[in-house]
């Protein structure tokens, strides 16, 4: 949505889009800015990838129940930086949905009381759809099947070209279905800035 409700603060704009979700450890609206690897911590994408490309992923894929939607809104644009989007269905169909349902993964670190078992593709009981989860950094294979499926997933990602969307002007806003779409970020040109507001949504009004 180009220049969606441009006069509104991100929090108010997000509330127009849907029900904003409060997540443990997160502010309701987070402001994302590019950081050099050294300036960040290893528990973040910036701490691992710096201003280089962020790989395609779904947000909080290592959580038991990841957030349903994420909304991104331009606060300060940068024409040289794109948000990359790829339909998870394309990848699932290449790897094979039944194989993905059998592939068990775990968070790379203990989360709350342990490392729970998660599936790369699983049914969501509330709306009978399926949820894909993918994170090349925060997820690890938990069974023999998953190890090879993770490799195939990476191959399938390489075989598909994501769509680039640039949030160029303040107010440009996108809502991503985090259960279906993978997203990433292109590299950030040196000495340039970009500020994106992000919120997680339980549901959308669209």
């Amino acid at each position, binding site marked *: 949505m180009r220049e969606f409700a441009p006069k509104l603060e991100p929090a108010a704009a997000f509330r127009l889009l849907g029900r904003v*979700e409060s997540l443990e450890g997160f502010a309701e609206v987070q402001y994302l800015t590019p950081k050099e690897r050294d300036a960040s911590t290893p528990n973040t994408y910036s701490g691992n990838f710096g201003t280089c490309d962020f790989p395609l992923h779904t947000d909080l894929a290592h959580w038991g129940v990841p957030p349903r939607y994420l909304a991104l809104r331009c606060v300060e644009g940068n024409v040289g930086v794109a948000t990359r989007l790829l339909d998870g269905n394309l990848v699932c169909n290449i790897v094979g949905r039944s194989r993905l349902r059998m592939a068990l993964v775990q968070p790379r670190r203990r989360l709350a009381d342990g490392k729970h078992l998660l599936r790369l593709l699983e049914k969501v009981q509330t709306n009978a759809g399926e949820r894909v989860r993918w994170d090349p950094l925060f997820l690890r294979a938990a069974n023999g099947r998953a190890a090879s499926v993770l490799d195939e997933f990476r191959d399938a990602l390489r075989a598909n070209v994501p769509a680039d969307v640039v949030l160029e002007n303040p107010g440009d806003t996108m809502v991503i279905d985090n259960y279906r779409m993978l997203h990433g970020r292109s590299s950030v040109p040196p000495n340039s800035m970009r500020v994106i507001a992000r919120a997680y949504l339980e549901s959308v009004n669209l």
Partner: protein
Amino acid sequence: MSSKLKAAKTAHPWSSDALLAKAQRYAQEMLSFDRDDWQFGLLSTFVLEFLLRAALARVSPTLLADAKDWNNTYFALGHSPKALRFLPKSIDTNSVLTRLRDILPDFTTELEGFSAQHISRRNEELHAGATPFDSLSTDWLSGFYSTAQVLLKSFGYELAFLVGTEEEEFADQLIEASRDKSAQAVSKAVNAHKTVWEAKSSEDKTKLERQASVWATRQAGHRVKCPACASDALIFGSAVTAPLRRLDGDLIIETQSYLPSKFECVACQLKIAGLSQLTACGLGASYKSTHTYDAAEYYAPEEDYQGYDDDNNEP
């Protein structure tokens, strides 16, 4: 507006998702052994236990809570009990089986029986010096896979979700073969009883037919003709739907659908147990039970010893 789903760092340990994932993990471990290996058998019991609990948790994790302490229910609802040294306690496997039998129409008493037996093997393996899986042939596999199939179906999954397509194909063949074997065994039993029946004198037959008719009228059960001697016989089963009540004047009429689990004929003494065996001889169709009560009778306390013959002084 789209449906809402709350994000959470971890899935509830009694959630069906978490339990299903555990079943998948153990299933893969199980398949790394030969099917006649004792470790395959032992691991299959873990798979079964997680599947059973997952199927119940799909309805609600609160069904897994041990009701002796309300904190367990509170925990199942996703809260953190404040009780000191609290360790969540879930119900035992037998209670899980009983609940599933009533909740899942396809989870027949036959599958319930198999599950109870298989879990008891696991208990014997873990709690005693005996080695029940060492001396076990692979006959149990068809029961195991049939049970897993029914439990997974309640989630909308195929058996391949648990064991992959290759093992699923093998399991399908095994289940089919087991059905054939059942059908042959039943047919043999029916023919044997028929032969014995035909050898009886017509006087004996008449007397036995009359007794069977009286018995079938007085006992609770679904009346059918015996496939061996054609006398009145009874089918017993378990309810697969909640009772439907309607008022007809002053009377309350209650109907309920049942799936057969047992057949008995007192005339020729033929007895058949298990839905698959009953299906093999044409007695497997579901039936409807209808009871008519007046209001006083309906709300009266249940009679002691219901379902038994009248009291008598036989030794």
